[in-house]
């Protein structure tokens, strides 16, 4: 068993150990969870450092026979993008455990589900076999369902069920697509599919059909308009840790899937449908941004802003050039950190004040200057202010879209610029109402964030700034993967 398999299954092992441990109270349970996420994080950091950037390609591969009858195998490996996503997931899981330090309702089950969720997400990002990929993709639903429906708030059961039904709906199409792909090429192996000429093999089955079936699955997850309605409910009603994982790592699976499977395997179909997805992307940005403006619930606002930001991912991916793809991948990572941080901060606020309506807060910067400051960094990231990761990502997306050879690309790029405007409006408005403005004396007793909270918010903030100031930190890893893909459309 290689180091990558160890990284994937370690959190799952942790979940198993947790569920078998005899003690009932929360203290030892969360320490065990923390240790497991910490070791996984350390392993991911090792992978990140050890990845050979000059040769690129899939590294740390591990494979074993699984179901020879249908030519499916256990096959995992990392290229630049999956490596970055694995590192992001491990990082966010570690933070999610820290952010759940105060969970004391059925803590054993909570941390076990959280760890299992991490294993599933890591599995999705590392799978090089479509069936394995689907397997991880599908199981992830169960831990998240329990996390939302048990430890959530508001209409938690409704939101959790909605999430499950939407995801299963999407993955049903995806499974159909994967099976059709299998019958076209005779293999589930992604590297083998990369080197096969699908158009030659397809025969009677229309490749465009497979492409769209797969894309529906990813579009539900990302989420792309009009499949986005599960997201605000699930994010809003989830517990903080689940919100962090959901917005930070889980919806990135959609973007990752489009990159890895839809674009990588179907370059000419991608080119054919690119205008459609550029339009959907800009709808995500503008429509998402406009609805965000109207939100009154702090978590709901952050959730809707995710829809707008995921529009940039779609825009970058379907620009089909190196700048756009780089932007999209950077946006996946940057948004993971930024939204993770926003949700973590919002979680702290809600936990301390028992209040989530933005209008009920006010002047909190007085009592909580540090939280206000850190929150502002994340908000700047969301607005795409220079020196944050959001800026680097979004500017690359714009560059990519402007220079894209796809019809409609230029007008779409111009319209999507309003996304920045929207982001500034809703983020600044929220900052103003929550941390500044008229003081709500009901919250005079509040204390600033604790040492743990300082620690993990600080880590997230330094991540955002590090990528913003020195993007090569990430792009260096991404480059081989992206260059290879962009070559499919002539660079």
């Amino acid at each position, binding site marked *: 068993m290689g180091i990558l398999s160890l990284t994937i299954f370690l959190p799952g092992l942790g979940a198993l150990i947790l569920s078998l441990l005899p003690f009932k109270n929360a203290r030892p349970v969360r320490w065990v969870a923390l240790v497991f996420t910490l070791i996984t994080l350390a392993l991911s950091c090792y992978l990140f450092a050890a990845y050979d950037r000059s040769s690129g390609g899939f590294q740390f591969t591990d494979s074993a026979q699984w*179901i020879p009858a249908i030519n499916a195998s256990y096959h995992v490996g990392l290229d630049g993008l999956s490596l970055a996503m694995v590192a992001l997931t491990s990082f966010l899981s570690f933070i999610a455990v820290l952010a759940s330090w105060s969970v004391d309702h059925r803590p054993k089950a909570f941390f076990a589900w959280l760890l299992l969720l991490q294993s599933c997400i890591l599995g999705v990002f590392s799978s090089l076999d479509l*069936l394995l990929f689907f397997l*991880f993709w599908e199981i992830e639903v169960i831990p998240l369902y329990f996390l939302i429906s048990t430890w959530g708030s508001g209409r938690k059961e409704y939101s*959790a069920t909605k999430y*499950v039904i939407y995801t*299963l709906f999407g993955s*049903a*199409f995806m499974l159909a697509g994967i099976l059709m792909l299998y019958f076209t090429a005779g293999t589930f192996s992604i590297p083998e599919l990369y080197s096969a000429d699908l158009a030659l093999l397809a025969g009677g089955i229309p490749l465009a059909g497979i492409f769209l079936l797969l894309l529906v699955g990813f579009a539900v997850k990302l989420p792309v308009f009009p499949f986005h309605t599960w997201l605000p409910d699930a994010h809003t009603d989830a517990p903080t840790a689940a919100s962090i994982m959901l917005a930070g790592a889980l919806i990135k699976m959609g973007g990752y899937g489009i990159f890895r499977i839809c674009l990588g395997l179907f370059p000419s179909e991608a080119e054919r449908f690119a205008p459609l997805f550029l339009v959907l992307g800009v709808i995500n940005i503008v429509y998402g941004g406009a609805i965000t403006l109207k939100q009154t619930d702090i978590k709901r606002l952050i959730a809707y802003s995710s829809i707008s930001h995921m529009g940039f991912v779609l825009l970058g991916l379907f620009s089909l050039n190196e700048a756009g793809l780089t932007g999209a991948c950077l946006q996946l990572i940057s948004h993971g950190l930024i939204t993770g941080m926003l949700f973590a901060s919002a979680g702290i606020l809600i936990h301390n004040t028992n209040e989530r309506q933005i209008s009920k807060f006010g002047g909190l910067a007085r009592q909580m200057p540090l939280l206000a400051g850190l929150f502002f960094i994340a908000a700047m990231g969301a607005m795409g202010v220079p020196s944050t990761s959001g800026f680097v990502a979004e500017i690359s997306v714009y560059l990519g879209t402007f220079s894209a050879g796809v019809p409609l690309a230029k007008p779409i790029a111009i319209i999507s610029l309003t996304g920045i405007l929207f982001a500034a409006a809703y983020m600044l408005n929220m900052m103003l109402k929550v941390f500044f403005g008229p003081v709500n004396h009901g919250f005079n007793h509040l204390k600033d964030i604790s040492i743990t909270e300082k620690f993990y918010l600080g880590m997230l903030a330094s991540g955002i700034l590090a990528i913003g100031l020195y993007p090569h930190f990430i792009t260096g890893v991404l480059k081989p993967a992206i260059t290879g893909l962009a070559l499919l459309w002539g660079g």
Partner: protein
Amino acid sequence: MNWQFILPEIIIAASAVIIIIADLISRKPVVTTAIAMTGITASLIIACISDTFFESVFEGMLFIDGWSWITRILLLGVSAAVVAASTAYSDKLKNHWAEYHALVLFALLGMMLMPAAGNLISAFLAIELATISFFILVGMLKTPESSEASLKMMLTGGVASAIMLYGMAFIFGSSGSTGLAEIALHSSPAFSSGLLLGILLLLAGFMFEVGAVPFHMWLPDAYEGAPTPITMYLSAGSKIAGIAVIARVFSMAFTTPAQLGHDWGIAVAVISAITMTLGNVIALQQTNIKRLLAYSGIVHTGYMLIGIAAIGMGNQVSGDGKLFFYMAAFALAEIAVFTAVIVITRYLNSDRIEDFSGLVHKSPVLFAALSTGLLSLMGLPLTAGFMAKLFIFTSAIDNGLLWLMIIAVINTVISAYYYIRIIRLMWLGKPCSESKIKLPAAPGFISLISGLGIILLGIAPYLLLKLVENIISLP
């Protein structure tokens, strides 16, 4: 004579007779259970060590081969689970304990002979032996619901038998034989429309046995009224045997010429699509766990019929390993679910789903077993149900039934709603009382075995699939 080939069946028949005689001497329930278990175990051992080569016995009345070998073992396993689970029902059935077990074994005898049938006559006799035993078993509780269910099942079953016989008459009339191999010889290279009519009538009769739409009406009532171990038997036993006999008869007799297989293959595919969709839609509204499982069973009949349709479209002349995998995975999941349901409903004295609320606090083990079974029925990855669906979907695409696969996939999503609803209720709901459920040893053991089996087949399906495909492909 070649009696040695049906030794497992003879042991079962003998055990049933011994149970009735022993009951005259000693009325202890333990004795009855012990005889039944011993009989099944002995039969299982002999079935396992018998060889799997094709053998035509009793002038072609029975074909003993890989398909009958493997289904026989599966059905014996299911029956063992039923006998063990029945111990949790002993107080309600104590007046008819011996008769009950004798009938369980007679039904088993019929079901074991079904997939081995080499002739339409022997197929009919085997089916009737099983169904008539079930008529009585379903009415065993003697409550009004139980008697009504039994009567309904008998009436519709009688009509179905008549239709089946009518179909057989047509087949005999147009091919001049009732032997499966002879029919296949006669219908090649051309076949008459009388034969096709006969096949469709026969199919209608078989559809009753497996509970496919539109012959499913008896099923929810029978499931609800029957003692729950019998509900489990109907679901994991009778349905499996029904699919197995369809696979046997249709693959051996009606796959040449290709056009013939194609004609009934399409009919089965359409029935399959309607069955799974209708079953799902009705299942969404159920509040009684046994009725819900009845409709969920109807949905799974639809999935298994995909395998039958694939046999027709692909003109396979033997049973299908992927179809068998589905049957085994389904039986495992039903055993896990029903065993837990038997213990829980006996404890609660209620079949209503809402009374399952907060079950995780009452018995984490039963919660785990029931959830695993339900997730497998739903087809979640890492359970046997997922792999089974995956295999059956691949055989659908393989045989040009892409549209059917898409309908099946969508139905899988719909079904998730009602399975997850139960799990949610058990996990999140408030328990009606603080008391814990005591899990008796025998059902606990079955829960454990079936739960582990589901996970094992979900992770390493190839263990079973390879074995089955090797056995079935033998000459």
